């Protein structure tokens, strides 16, 4: 068996430098352009300006807000993003639960830390023997053990008879 480091087509030094330069120019330029186009200054903090509004009766934090957002387009945009947050949030939660369950099933096929290869997860996923599931293990331990040392797993080549019981 041979093992070697692969020939990878990395990015060229010049391309990296040019890209970095473009990135910096884009970042600084976009900030400059935005403030230039809108004619404002980042120095004036609107939070400080409107935090307290003594001109409004019973003034206090946020008290100068006498009306909500009155531009329908912006109102719609916010409603849209709220909906996207909820829909994608639920989808992300589904992904979390799927992966959590997948990880548990995969873990049930791994060797136990105490050296016992059996786990309680096997019985709950259909009663298969430990070597017939996971990310396609087939229990071909001869190959596995032969390659175990290279895979960096000190126990892989220990020859304990695989995970069949």
């Amino acid at each position, binding site marked *: *068996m*041979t093992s*070697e*480091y*692969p020939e*990878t*087509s*990395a*990015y060229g030094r010049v*391309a990296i430098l*040019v*890209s970095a330069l473009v*990135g910096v120019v*884009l970042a600084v330029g*976009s*900030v400059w352009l*935005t403030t230039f186009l*809108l*004619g*404002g*200054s*980042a120095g004036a*903090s609107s939070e400080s300006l409107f935090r307290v509004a003594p001109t409004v009766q019973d003034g206090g934090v*946020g008290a100068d807000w006498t*009306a*909500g*957002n*009155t*531009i329908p387009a912006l109102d719609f945009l*916010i409603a849209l*993003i*709220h909906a*996207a*947050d*909820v829909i994608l949030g639920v989808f*992300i*939660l589904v992904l*979390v639960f799927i*992966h*959590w369950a*997948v*990880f548990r*099933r*995969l*873990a049930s096929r791994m*060797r136990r*830390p105490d050296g016992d290869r059996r786990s309680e997860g096997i019985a709950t996923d259909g009663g298969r023997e430990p*070597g*017939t*599931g996971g*990310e*396609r293990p087939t*229990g071909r331990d001869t*190959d*596995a*053990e032969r390659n175990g040392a290279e*895979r960096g*797993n000190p*126990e*892989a080549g220990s020859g304990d008879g695989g995970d069949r019981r």
Partner: protein
Amino acid sequence: MTNLDHGKFTRVTTVFHALLALDVFVLFFTGYGIMFNDELWWLVTLMGGNEGVTAIHRLVGVGLIALIGFWMTLMIVTPTGRSNFRAIIPTPEDAKAFVQDILFVLGRVDQRHPNARQFAGYDADEIPLLSYVGKGVIFIFSVELTLLSISGLLIWSKTALMGFFQTKTAAMAFVVFHGLLGVIMLMGIMFHIFEHGFHPAFYPLETKAFIPREMIPEDHGDSEADTTGIENLTLSPSWGWVTSLMGFFVVTGIVSVLLGSIFDEGYPVPRELAVGGGPTNLLLTIGINIGILVLFVGLVLSLYGNVLRSRWERQIEQERDRTTATDGGQRSDD
């Protein structure tokens, strides 16, 4: 194959990933310190109060635009980058991989689809550059980062925006839009941390995005194993309880920021007059703080990945030195 599996990222990609992660984490800590200031008052105080936190957010935001500009240019001007475009296009196989993951959870199939596998082991050559989740992450994050950058630039000077629209609430609406948009990414990152930190074969960290491909030896032996070999790996003793705890934290964090984003839009008057930002109760406060804790774990894991790369590099150097000493001066990888 090694137990580092199919590391297919170049060194530039791994460095970019590390910088992007660092940048985005700081943007989250500052941005959501502002949006959820009721719940994360301590974070705002920690970063210099109202002015400190906005200053950091702006500075790091410029860094994000620089990183995006760098990456887009690199992808366009280099052949490697252009070839990556093809690798990230979703295919029908990705949809099948998602369905098969559900069936795998239900015990209806015995294996994950190749487009879903994080641990490929002996089958590494059959596994695409990115899983279906990886492709989704790239697409959603690309759209998110673009829109966040544009909206972030628009609210760079809120006083100017107020002048432009001739109303204060319009400017605040843009701020709210910016914050709500980021919530999707915030939730996505929490899942990303869970997905790549708590796979049993890689726990506590999948090193794919940290150790460049050029440093991971490829096996050219005669092994014909049709197994991933996951059954030969030993589960970490702490995996069970740590993953259960983190799973609970991730779900709590996602649910909390989702609820928080509905009730607490961050500024007094985003859509309706609701001074105080909506209901703030103890549970929501704890939940959102747990979400921030998940991000801290992600930040630590990201830094740990770079420590691992450094250790790995040193180990390879030592192995090369040893090989050089024993085979008469010829390096084995030459």
